[in-house]
């Protein structure tokens, strides 16, 4: 029941993102598409904020009376450098909030926060609050009317907890009550919170194998130029200076950081605490609601495993480690699967050299196998696909097998009329020897591979590994004897079914022409 509800929430968000991503693929190209680089962009904007912040801090006077004039001087007298740096600082942190929010929403909509991925999600929730605290504490330092409003509200909110012994909002009661020492505490918070944020960001990507924290250079340059242009065209300015004897009337808040303050004004501290704590708690336990029915992790069959490490090299989640042998055979190592980190993508099965479809004595067995889709079952499915195509096509039509994945376009919709289909958890699960099998003898006229969109593999490395195996760059190589002209590859997102259908038709026609040429030459 909860699963249905969850899917009902995830599905529209996922479709929205898919549509936007395909839209952005046009102007940017898949490699520079910002919607596929949200996490790395957040990191990049952090660095921009850090460097610009250090610059601004050099000129900042940390006393209560000197803070505002020092920032004003920087913004107006040094507008060509300091003013731009200040604006960069503000806008890059705003951009970081946007990227972080979109990133979290995207990963949620793709169900990439449960099972083995719980750690990354769980350590991502504190990042939201650390970023907000970093930004809000930064606005305090300007000590203008907005800072006054934010500081007093924040202190009143904290006072509700009653843990400080006396009221911290008292420090903002009258003109004389805010002293330099308390103000220094605010300065300290703005230095410490972003440092802690950086540390937490590192922990967030700790369990991600081959994590990327830098966006592609072109995208980074473009984003930076965008921030620079915005900083020049619309510089960040301060409100009138803070005066504790006055209550500010109209404010121009930075809604990226201060959206909750008007809610505080309307609903009070208690409600806001409930919302914040309740919301955070819900987000934190989300990986376990509802309980994930996980596909069982692959099993290693030691009689077939000689410790060649191909599965270890290919696993996108670092779920496989090589350990000393336990079965007494003379090999040094054996593969061991950590089911806590495994998402049952099957890429290890595709990498294992024993995953060949050529009939042997007994059932097909391989060194590492997925219980939910064993090599033997895959072999049977492929043969079923072959049988299907033998039964369906009209005379002269090419027979081909379409192999796709569960997260790209649904390939099963294309079955029929000479086309057989097989869907895998990830296209990286397909051992290249199966292509050799299909394209030798008279089994198939052609094979077409598809998966998720380029740069968007649901299991991160399936597309890359498949391309490298086909190109003879990554073990196991696709044999050179396999005719490449009878193999076609087209990466398509889930919402690009029509493009895939078009490619399928074109390929089928090409195969027919090829068959016609071949038969003419044979005669």
């Amino acid at each position, binding site marked *: 029941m909860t699963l249905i509800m969850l899917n009902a929430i995830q599905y529209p968000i996922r479709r929205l993102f898919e549509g936007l991503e395909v839209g952005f693929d046009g102007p940017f190209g898949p490699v520079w598409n910002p919607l596929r680089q949200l996490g790395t962009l957040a990191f990049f904007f952090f660095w921009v904020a850090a460097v610009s912040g250090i610059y601004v801090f050099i000129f900042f006077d940390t006393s209560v009376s000197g803070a505002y004039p020092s920032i004003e001087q920087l913004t107006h007298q040094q507008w060509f450098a300091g003013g731009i740096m200040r604006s960069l600082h503000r806008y890059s942190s705003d951009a970081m909030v946007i990227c972080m929010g979109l990133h979290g929403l995207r990963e949620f909509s793709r169900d990439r926060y449960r099972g083995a991925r719980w750690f990354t999600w769980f350590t991502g929730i504190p990042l939201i609050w650390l970023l907000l605290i970093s930004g809000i504490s930064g606005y305090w330092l300007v000590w203008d009317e907005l800072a006054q409003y934010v500081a007093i509200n924040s202190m009143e909110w904290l006072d509700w907890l009653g843990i400080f012994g006396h009221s911290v909002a008292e420090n903002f009661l009258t003109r004389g009550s805010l002293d330099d020492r308390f103000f220094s505490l605010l300065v300290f918070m703005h230095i410490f919170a972003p440092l802690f944020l950086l540390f937490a960001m590192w922990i967030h990507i700790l369990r991600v194998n081959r994590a990327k924290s830098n966006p592609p250079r072109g995208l980074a340059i473009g984003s930076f130029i965008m921030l620079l242009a915005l900083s020049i065209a619309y510089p960040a300015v301060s409100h009138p200076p803070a005066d504790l004897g006055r209550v500010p009337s109209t404010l121009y808040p930075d809604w990226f950081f201060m959206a909750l303050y008007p809610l505080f004004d309307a609903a009070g501290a208690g409600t806001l605490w409930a919302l914040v704590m309740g919301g955070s708690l819900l987000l934190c336990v989300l990986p376990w609601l509802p309980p994930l029915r996980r596909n069982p992790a692959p099993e290693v069959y030691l009689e077939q495993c000689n410790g060649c490490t191909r599965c270890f090299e290919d696993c996108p989640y670092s779920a496989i480690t090589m350990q000393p042998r336990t079965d007494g055979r003379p090999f040094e190592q054996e593969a061991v699967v950590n089911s806590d980190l495994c998402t049952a993508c099957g890429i290890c099965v595709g990498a294992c050299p024993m995953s*060949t479809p050529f009939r042997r004595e007994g059932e097909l067995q391989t060194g590492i196998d997925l219980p939910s889709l064993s090599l033997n079952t895959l072999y049977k499915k492929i043969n079923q696909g072959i049988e299907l195509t033998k039964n369906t096509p009209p005379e002269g039509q090419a027979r081909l097998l379409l192999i796709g994945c569960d997260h790209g376009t649904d390939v099963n919709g294309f079955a029929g009329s000479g086309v057989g289909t097989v869907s895998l958890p990830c296209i990286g699960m397909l051992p290249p020897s199966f292509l050799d099998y299909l394209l030798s003898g008279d089994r198939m006229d052609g094979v077409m591979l598809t998966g998720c969109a380029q740069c968007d593999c649901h299991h991160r490395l399936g597309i890359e590994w498949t391309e490298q195996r086909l190109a003879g760059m990554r*073990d196991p*190589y696709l044999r050179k004897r396999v005719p490449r002209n009878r193999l076609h590859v087209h990466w398509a997102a889930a919402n690009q079914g029509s493009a895939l259908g078009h490619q399928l038709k074109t390929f089928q026609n090409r195969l027919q022409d090829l068959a016609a040429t071949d038969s003419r030459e044979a005669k």
Partner: protein
Amino acid sequence: MNDPQEPAHIQWRKAFETGDPAIDHEHREMISRINGFLISLNTEPETDLLVHQLGDIYALITAHFALEEKHMRDQGYKAYAVHKQDHEKLLDDLRDLMDDLEQAAFTKIRETIGHRISHWFIHHFSTHDARWHCRPMDGQ
């Protein structure tokens, strides 16, 4: 080696020993399987058994080559690329053989199949593998 009609069995020689227990173990297993295949060739030709045995041999050899290549990479073996090329060629040849057998072109290959297998196996041993195991760190 004597009668062109009867493919010769491969005997394990001291020269085959590489000093690496894992490699030697796999070499022994491959030789025993190949010998089994050669026996079947004589006693029960033209059955599915030959196809199955070749399938097993193919899988075993692929895994063996994978392990060898891993060792070579770890050791920084300079002639790795050439050695790997030979592996790929051997596997391509074996696949050709398997296809011929599947398509029941048995009569075409019967005379040569045994020789081919034992010949290139021993050839690969005495050239590439010997080079690697005798002089593990340089590429001469």
